């Protein structure tokens, strides 16, 4: 039995479905990346500063998240969010798009932990002299971070953050488990509904490749332009 290819189907409703899926994927990426940075940067800084209470808490969060599957975390939030979050929030999320919200919460917390480790590694990689110099200039702790440390940390963490972004793009496919209509979901749906799995999956694969490679390329260019004044 041989398969009858029909690539022109991608220029009909099928293609439109894939395009809608791509938009949902990108929307997920935008939300997750923003929230993961908002979570990850403070956690990374707290882990690096060290403290008696907050630092172990951040360590536990990072360790637990990094050693468990993102997929199970999505399922956890999808089924448990109604028990954990306050009732008004749940009602708002339910009216908005609960599957989407649960995936965003789970994946933001997941990637937040990885970004926290990137930030911590970046802070540790800055030579100690930089801290001493900033302090001896009379800068307060927050000024030191803002004007001396973070600009350097940002420069050296751009490659890792790019990797993390690519990983976010790939992990949004897991949102299919709770029924978010992102790209992989659309490809699967087309396979079931039109029986055009090969074309749909090939197109989805190509779209993921383009998104990830474009992201990696932009990250590499940006990293190079940030480092152009720095002697290696």
């Amino acid at each position: 039995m041989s398969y009858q290819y029909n690539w022109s189907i991608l220029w009909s409703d099928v293609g439109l479905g894939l395009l809608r899926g791509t938009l949902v994927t990108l929307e997920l990426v935008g939300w997750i990346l923003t929230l993961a940075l908002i979570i990850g940067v403070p956690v990374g800084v707290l882990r690096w500063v060290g403290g008696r209470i907050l630092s172990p808490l951040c360590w536990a969060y990072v360790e637990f998240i990094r050693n468990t599957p993102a997929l199970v975390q999505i399922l956890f939030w999808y089924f448990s969010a109604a028990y954990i979050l306050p009732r008004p929030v749940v009602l708002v999320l339910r009216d908005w798009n609960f599957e989407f919200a649960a995936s965003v919460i789970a994946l933001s917390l997941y990637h937040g932990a990885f970004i926290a480790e990137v930030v911590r590694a970046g802070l540790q990689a800055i030579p100690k002299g930089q801290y001493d110099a900033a302090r001896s200039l009379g800068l307060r702790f927050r000024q030191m971070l803002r004007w001396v440390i973070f600009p350097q940390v940002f420069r050296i963490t751009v490659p890792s953050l790019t990797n993390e972004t690519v990983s976010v793009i790939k992990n949004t496919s897991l949102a299919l488990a709770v029924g978010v209509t992102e790209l992989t979901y659309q490809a699967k749906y087309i396979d079931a509904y039109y029986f055009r799995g090969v074309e749909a999956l090939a197109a989805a694969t190509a779209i993921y490749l383009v998104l990830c490679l474009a992201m990696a390329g932009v990250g590499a260019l940006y990293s190079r332009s940030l480092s152009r004044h720095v002697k290696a």
Partner: protein
Amino acid sequence: MGWAQVLTVDNVIRLLVGDLRRGEPGGLLLTLGMSVVGIIGGTVVGVVVGVMRASTSRWLLVPSFLYVQLLRNIPLLVVIFWLYFIPPHFGIETSKFFSVSMALIVFTGAYIAEIVRSGIRSVAPGTVEAAQSLGLKPLQVRLWIVLPQAFFAMIPALTGRYITTVKNTALAYLIGFSEVTEIGREINARLMTAPIEVYTTVLIMYFGVNRCLSALMRTLEDRDRFRRVFIRL
């Protein structure tokens, strides 16, 4: 409370070994089985492709480069779908275990190839020159001189990749494979009132497996301990 409903003897046995009594292994046992297949297969593929990536021949370099770039830039779920839903279109029967294992192996292999490549680059060139001047052939140099030295440099990165592989086995539940996530989903669907407890249990199981795995890898990291354990064998 929900914990009493979730952690019944029956549920715990199902989470650990599935329906082993009826001859259908599942649960954590199947998760571990798939992890071992993915880790060992992925390492073999990764070493072969990684050595190809570090070679100078264009015929080895180009295919290995394309393989790594392709697999590293698409989600594992898409690979699983390629290997599970597409072969039937061409009249080829697929089995869940085979599809998921193959997907895990080729996916993990692409990442390990990059780890192996940078491990090879970290080996001091002097040792390679010394081996060459002793008259070893290029492949012999790679296999017996470079890779063993690169191994210790690769261990931290490999640990991370192995942990990811264990986590990635959870994706098998999406094609209805009864590993620990799927059993958790079944228990949750039956109880309907204790999702926090059910999924926390599943998460803790993965956490335990991964902590054991990283502890195991840390014992390998110490060269002296590694020699004591393995060279004596």
